[in-house]
């Protein structure tokens, strides 16, 4: 059995066990609990006030923006996971102090994606001539991994800086944040009349209020 097959079988068994446990609990509850329906019990509890309309309405767009940002960043994190293992392993292989053949063979197997049972040093037979990646090749892999990360990370950081600047990661986007301070207001009022045709307290031109 390869680990992938066993992972799938464990998953199915566990999922089954979970659902059986849940439905057993619900069915037992259904059998023993009282059933005493009344019209009032069918109402939504909103602190005793009569409900006005459905709650399935448009909701705040900010939640949607957060979800979009999450997708981008979570995909990024998901890509980092395999990168971290490959980088760590390759860097270990490139270390000149790691010379033991069995260790190197195990690390090479791990880098190649071998199942976990085979990547232990003790799993490699004594005196085996199994090929291991040389220090130089491991060094090349490490350098490549660093370059990969630098590019990937650079793009992500650029995006993050842009989001920050645009104010998308700001939760409070009230007009209060855009209000002029008393000093600014005085300054503006002192300026010549024709340069400020519409003077409002809540200017909508600031960067923090930008919406897609």
């Amino acid at each position, binding site marked *: 059995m390869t*680990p992938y097959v066993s*992972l799938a079988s*464990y*998953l199915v*068994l*566990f*999922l089954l*066990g*979970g*659902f059986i*446990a*849940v*439905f057993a*609990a*619900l069915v*037992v*509850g*259904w059998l*023993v*609990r009282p*059933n005493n329906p009344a019209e009032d*019990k*069918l109402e*939504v*509890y*909103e*602190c005793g006030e009569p*409900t006005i309309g*459905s*709650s*399935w309405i448009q909701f705040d767009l900010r*939640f949607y923006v*957060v*979800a979009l*940002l999450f997708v981008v*960043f*979570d995909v990024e*994190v*998901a890509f*980092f*996971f395999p990168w*971290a*293992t490959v*980088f*760590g392993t390759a860097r*270990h292989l490139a270390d000149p*102090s790691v010379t033991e053949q069995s260790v190197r063979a195990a690390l090479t197997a*791990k880098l190649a994606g071998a199942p*976990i*049972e085979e990547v232990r040093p*003790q*799993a490699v037979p004594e005196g085996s001539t199994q090929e291991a990646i040389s220090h130089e090749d491991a060094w090349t892999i490490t350098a490549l991994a*660093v370059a990969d*990360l630098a590019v990937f*990370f650079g793009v992500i*950081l650029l995006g993050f800086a842009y989001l*920050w600047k645009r104010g998308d*990661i700001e*939760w409070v986007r009230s007009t*209060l944040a855009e209000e002029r301070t008393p000093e600014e207001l005085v300054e503006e009022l002192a300026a010549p009349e024709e340069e400020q045709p519409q003077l409002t307290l809540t200017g909508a031109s600031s960067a923090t209020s930008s919406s897609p």
Partner: protein
Amino acid sequence: MTVVWIVLKILVVTAFIQLAVAYLILLERKIAAYIQQRIGPNRAGWHGILQPIADGVKFLLKEDFVPESANKFLHALAPAIAMVTAVMAFAVVPFGPTDPSDPDAPQFVIAPGIDVGLLYIFSVSSLAVYAVILGGWASNNKYSFLGGLRSAAQVISYEIPLGLAVLGVILLARSLNLEQIVAAQADRVWFVFYQPLGFLIFLAAAFAETNRAPFDLPECEQELVGGYHTEYSGMKFALFFLGEYTHIITVSYLTAILFFGGWDLPFIVSADDRGFLAGLLKVLVLLVKAFCMIVFMMWVRWTLPRFRFDQLMRLAWKALIPLALLNLVLTAVLVHVARSFGLVDQFRVAVAYLWVIGAIVLVIAVGWLINASRRSAYGT
């Protein structure tokens, strides 16, 4: 290993988790009581020892209300998802010593030798957000809906720093396999000493992921009644509750495994110890570590006030994510540099890391203070 044996193991572990959860709730109530100078539950049995059983019976006998305007199917599905995903995540968490290369040794984990263990936990536990958002939406209650949306935004926002913080550990351990991560700490020092910043980020994000105070916005009773589970009663409510506490157990085990050396305890029990007694001792060591974490989480809940929602989002996106990215880059660079100089001595790496982190945190703190004093001039 035969299927029967696997099923047996699943049943025993799951049943044990349910029992543990029931008593954790009692423990939480007791801790809350003592922190608030009360006595807590003491009617059912000696010092309330039978309270969980009484609660269970109550949950079963409680009438089940479903609002007429709710979506009945999703309303029933949501607590099931909460429970199933919480238990599923525990499948790869070792609760004792495991060694997949030695098939004769007892494997104290439901699914031993999973290469992608950590990735699996992240993917499964992030499914739990469906339970919250579906439960909130299906109830057709404005409070539930708002609670569900908030929870979704919170959980997905904190998942990013959580993943990034764990990446530092993966870089050091060179594996996603939880058993390997423990093995990597056995011959060295616990990762909390190499990753102090990563540990703090992980801790904060874990609190938010489990919807625990000070980040229990989804169910803040003062503004949202009961949050997403306002319209739930009886066994369905109990399933949400069980799922939440199972999540706490998983997170506590993960903390002990990732940052506190798992079942390794210097001078008492080492990775090389074999045999029945050593195995038992290791299970106990891990259990005690996880238990300390659980008590810590409860202690925090009854000590710190709740965050406001905008503070919560600001903490995630403007503090934790940049710090976690910094931690990742620093760890990668230090691992790389240390090996380039033949500096395999892990202690020196750790000390260098601590110095760099300390300097950066100091700069940030000073900048923050200056900014805060400037802001307070306008009273915002």
